């Protein structure tokens, strides 16, 4: 009689094939072994997840966060179910926006990761589409019938004029309600503050109901705030283990402190969701911080970190990491839908950087497929990059035109405050800041 496998092993073996799990040596060896693991996982009672951590409580502050923050009362309505029973419940009419919102604090990342491994694409789309996660800062994101975009006006030398040119291009195409968010090349406080001031002046000049973010390290943003720079949203890349977060140069206590500092600026006008997080499957393995856990379960654990800070925006950067983690369009597509589903179930305002690098076996058709699926699944927002070509990060993401395609196809609109602004002054004159 073989011994019962640990949850960690079962989760890894049950995970649909992806290159990162093979590279880590945790994947099932055969398709049949994978399905056997899925069948075994389907029979696991959800309660087992409450007592068996994939990384010990003593070893990892993300585990401690997950267990300490777990809401037993919220969990109670599904406490009698197995993982397979939970999938069936999610697809039933009993699961709706109200019951799912009430359930979210009772769910642990490993539970949602587990159930996602039993789901096919249509399940991931349908169950996620039932969730509604609404957040606010200077506008309202995540409402039914709405689909937002981040303008990502990156420039290879942080040239202020270049950043503004791409920003204006995006606004003229109706993008930018989620955030105008720049990935800076230079990580020093001076450069970051310069971009923050530039975009804040621009936002005020044209009274744009959106928020600004420069995606530097959290400590750089803190120093910028110390110097009086206008930080709307605090950004940070995060992951699902303490060791991975350490490799990003952050910890929960550091994030707590930075979050409080940002809240105290009180820059939001309609709400106080002041954080923005990015995640992505595979980052833990690449930092050698994966503890032998499959990359999708680790990704879901990152969402436990995110939800502590009531974020305005969370997005998985699904195709950026490279083919050794997600090899092709099929793996990227599945991962994007899993991440969106898991984040939404945990109560996060999920967006997605639908993207690919040139060394992945993926192309614009794969990008369109995932974009369309995510939009039907109720994804809160996607990136908007001029022409889909990010000339700073050297990868392809969704364009302003791609967002227009989705809005046309599904009759979706921007955030209400932003929509009103877009139609307010059709003859608005744009002046270049030289």
């Amino acid at each position, binding site marked *: 009689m073989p011994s019962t496998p640990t949850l960690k092993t079962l989760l890894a073996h049950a995970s649909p094939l992806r*290159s990162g799990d*093979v*590279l880590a040596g945790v994947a099932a060896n055969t398709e049949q072994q994978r399905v056997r693991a899925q069948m075994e996982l389907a029979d696991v009672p959800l309660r087992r997840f409450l007592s068996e951590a994939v990384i010990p409580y003593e070893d990892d502050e993300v585990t401690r966060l997950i267990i300490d923050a777990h809401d037993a009362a919220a969990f109670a309505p599904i406490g009698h179910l197995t993982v397979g029973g939970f999938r069936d419940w999610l697809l039933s009419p009993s699961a709706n926006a109200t019951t799912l919102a009430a359930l979210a604090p009772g769910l642990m990342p490993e539970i949602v990761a587990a159930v996602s491994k039993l789901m096919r694409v249509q399940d991931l789309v349908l169950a996620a589409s039932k969730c509604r996660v609404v957040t606010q800062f200077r506008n309202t994101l995540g409402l039914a019938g709405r689909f937002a975009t981040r303008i990502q*006006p*990156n*420039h*290879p*030398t*942080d*040239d202020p*004029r*270049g950043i*503004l*040119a*791409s920003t*204006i*291009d995006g606004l*003229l*195409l109706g993008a930018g309600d989620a955030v105008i968010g720049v*990935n800076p*090349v*230079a*990580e020093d406080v001076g450069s970051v503050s310069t971009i923050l001031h530039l975009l804040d002046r621009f936002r005020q000049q044209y009274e744009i109901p959106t928020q600004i973010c420069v995606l530097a390290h959290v400590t750089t943003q803190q120093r910028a705030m110390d110097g009086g720079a206008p930080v709307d949203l605090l950004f940070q890349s995060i992951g699902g283990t303490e060791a991975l977060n350490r490799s990003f140069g952050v910890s929960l206590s550091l994030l707590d402190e930075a979050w409080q500092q940002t809240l105290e600026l009180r820059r939001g006008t309609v709400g106080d969701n002041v954080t923005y997080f990015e995640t992505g499957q595979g980052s833990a393995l690449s930092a050698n911080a994966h503890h032998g856990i499959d990359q999708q379960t680790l990704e879901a654990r990152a969402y436990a970190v995110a939800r502590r800070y009531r974020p305005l925006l969370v997005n998985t950067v699904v195709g950026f990491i*490279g*083919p*050794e983690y997600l*090899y092709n369009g099929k793996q990227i597509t599945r991962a994007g839908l899993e991440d969106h589903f898991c984040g939404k179930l945990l109560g996060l305002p999920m967006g997605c950087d639908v993207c690919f*690098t*040139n*060394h992945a076996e993926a*192309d*614009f058709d794969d990008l369109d497929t995932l974009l369309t699926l995510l939009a039907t699944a109720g994804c809160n927002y996607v990136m908007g*990059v*001029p*022409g*889909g*070509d990010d*000339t*700073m*990060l*050297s*990868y*392809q993401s969704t*364009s302003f*035109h791609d967002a*227009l*395609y989705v*809005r*046309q196809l599904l009759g979706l609109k921007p955030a209400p405050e932003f929509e009103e602004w877009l139609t307010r002054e059709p003859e608005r004159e*744009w002046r*270049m800041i030289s």
Partner: protein
Amino acid sequence: MANDLLTCLRAVTDSRIGLERAGGSLTTRDWLALRAAHAAARDAIHATSGQPDIPPPVLYVHSRCQDRQQYLLRPDLGRRLADDTELPAGPFDVALVVADGLSPLAVAHHAGPLVGALRNLLAEAQLTVSPVIQVSQGRVAIGDEIGERLQARLVVLLIGERPGLSAADSLGVYLTYAPRVGRTDAERNCISNIRSGGLDIALAARRTMALVQAALARQLTGVELKESAQTLTAPTARLAESAAAPPQAE
């Protein structure tokens, strides 16, 4: 968009702004231009022909990757030499390595001229230099094993960077002091974006040489070794130092 505004905006960025719409979508012309740029990047990654013209002495070796697919899936194998690899006995001051990386095209276009310029500067400085070790299916860290086995004080590795849509043949240079298996990226210095329209060969060679001398003098490379401002005279210098650059080759 008004034409004068569009002209003004386009002058300040290479991003694909001001694209016309067919309905809300890209026009046929812009869509096919985007697809063409992606095709060029794909072809650069999978290019098999076009060896660089590097004068002898050159030694050809392989990583542990059997083919391109394995190279993409198993970065660990691309960081190690094939088991039967024979290398000359050292020691050398500097080991010169050329790896195809993610753009064999970049190596074919720029490695020959850059090796020539570097050999001249290294000879002027009276440093002993290894034969060029040219690696197929190699990643940045393979220089650590090569440098260690050559008993080199410093390894200088030229590698094809991950092709972007604006440039498919960009070469990078990585310097690692006291190379040995297990060095991390934080222990390296990088000069990136060497290509036509980017950092030119002559300046790339001078900047590499300045880093070589600084590394040998201070006996280290990595985050504690900065380039001096005098060598950063090209407009692309700031881009070349971008934090985003190293992973593109890795």
